[in-house]
């Protein structure tokens, strides 16, 4: 019942299974990490931490045991590219994980797959079994003596916050998925207290690709601070929703032209935790240095009520906040109440101003990325659509 989502040419199609893994194992772990670093790739999950640096940190830790974790808890509203990657290029992800294992000195990889993607599990298990048969996993992987990397799948149980890497680790340990205090970072003390590398599904697939096509190739694409290509999940009011590959730094305008979304009123970049960009700013670049995204692009046509959008996002966060820290647990409820007041035409300008200041506190005082980013959409909608959100008739009692 699920239909093909791919909408343009995607580089992963050019890469064969194990090709990147074979290439990467030709060089030393140090050289491999250098390659990753030189490619300039940053985390494809959304936070955008330089991947090479993360690998180097985890590699530098001395430990008898380390873990490589693939974050497949793709829960950001509007994103589905990781699902598409697993449906089409699972081998590249596993190649990337094995490369990471080789680079940092880990022998165990775990895929944390969100509960909603249970239907993918069988296929992925089959793929892993195939790889074991071909000695792309398991003892003396690819004939390299002492490199015994294997991967298993751990199912999520339905919690958006587990996309945050320390919450994910807590979940793996059998606990409530609540973000940890950092430092220490997972690179030093992660799963079961061991050095742990957590990367997004797409990041691993790109690493395998970079091993084949070279770090210079990757670096040559995109912008200086946001190198390479990226998959985007496009949904909302467009002619052809689906997964697209674009270079980083693409402008919102260009992107809308490609996907058939011209004439949009606004675009939500980065999902519920991202920013709502109004049409006046469609020349902005989708890149870490401008508007960052893990790939979620939701297009709003002229007919959309952005207060409905803000309400939907805040309902999401009110439910999906892990609930441990005060700003996020209560703050999102307060913002939601405020949006509902606005919808009813019952919110004073003074109170809206207070809520905006509260939202700013949430951004800097919350414990993890969820609370820090949950007010983004609210703030950008209030900032850019003031006229629209205040123009409500009070609801007759």
């Amino acid at each position, binding site marked *: 019942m699920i239909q093909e989502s791919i909408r343009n040419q995607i580089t992963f199609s050019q890469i064969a299974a194990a090709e990147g893994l074979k290439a990467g194992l030709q060089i030393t772990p140090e050289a491999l990490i250098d390659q990753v670093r030189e490619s300039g790739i940053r985390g494809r999950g959304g936070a955008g931490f330089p991947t090479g640096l993360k690998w180097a940190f985890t590699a530098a830790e001395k430990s008898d045991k380390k873990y490589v974790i693939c974050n497949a808890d793709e829960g950001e509203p509007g994103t589905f590219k990781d699902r598409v990657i697993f449906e089409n290029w699972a081998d590249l992800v596993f190649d990337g994980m094995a490369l990471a294992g080789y680079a940092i000195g880990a022998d165990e990889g775990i895929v944390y797959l969100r509960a*909603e993607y249970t239907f993918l599990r069988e296929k992925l298990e089959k793929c892993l079994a195939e790889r074991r048969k071909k000695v792309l996993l398991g003892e003396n992987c690819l004939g390299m003596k002492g490199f015994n990397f294997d991967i298993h799948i751990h199912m999520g149980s339905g919690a958006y916050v587990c996309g945050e890497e320390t919450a994910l680790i807590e979940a793996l340990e059998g606990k409530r998925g609540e973000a940890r205090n950092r430092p220490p970072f997972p690179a030093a003390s992660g799963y079961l207290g061991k050095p742990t590398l957590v990367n997004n599904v797409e990041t691993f697939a790109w690493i395998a690709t970079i091993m084949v096509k070279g770090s210079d190739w990757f670096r040559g694409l995109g912008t200086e601070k946001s190198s390479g290509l990226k998959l985007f999940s496009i949904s909302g009011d467009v002619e052809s929703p689906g997964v697209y590959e674009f270079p980083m730094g693409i402008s919102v305008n260009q992107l809308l032209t490609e996907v058939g979304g011209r004439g949009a009123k606004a675009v939500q970049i980065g999902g519920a935790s991202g920013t709502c960009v109004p049409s006046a700013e469609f020349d902005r670049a989708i890149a870490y240095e401008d508007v960052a995204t893990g790939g979620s692009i939701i297009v709003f046509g002229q007919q959309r009520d952005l207060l409905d959008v803000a309400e939907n996002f805040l309902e*999401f966060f009110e439910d999906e906040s892990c609930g441990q820290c005060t700003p996020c647990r209560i703050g999102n409820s307060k913002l939601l109440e405020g949006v509902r007041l606005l919808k009813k035409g019952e919110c004073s300008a003074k109170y809206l101003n207070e809520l905006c200041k509260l939202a700013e506190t949430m951004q800097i005082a919350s414990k993890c990325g969820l609370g820090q980013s949950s007010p983004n959409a609210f703030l950008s909608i209030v900032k850019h659509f003031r006229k629209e959100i205040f123009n409500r008739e009070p609801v007759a009692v």
Partner: protein
Amino acid sequence: MLISQHEQTLDQLQGLVEKHGDQRNALIPILQDFRDQSGQITDYAMQAVANLLKIEPSEVYGVVSFYSFLSERPQGNFVIRLCRTISCDMAGKQAVARQLENDLGITFGETTKDGRFSLEWANCMGVCDQGPAMLVNETLYTKVSPEKVGEILDSFKSRA
């Protein structure tokens, strides 16, 4: 010989402990498997698994109540989860929701009297390009429209 519900639960859990181990990190896989086998995680099962893993029942409850796919206690054979997040919302989830409620005669969070269908909301399911999306147990339906709801429900009515 008749064995009690509790003994059956315990047997089941012991098997799962053998499969997943008796450490804390086995807790969620055990709960997931138990839910899949039994439909829901019972009060007794939470206490029994705590005992087997040498943790306290409150800790198990803390975990169960945290995760949507563990905490819901749908009684129905078929659990319908409709995505309520933005893209599916814009694609018309509200009309689908109304149709589901009308056709089943229950509201979200409820189970039909015959115990066959439970209706739940879900957050983003990752098929935003094909909304509204709906899961029935593990089967995913995309681009669901109100007129398709009846058809989908009928296909399950004939199953056990």
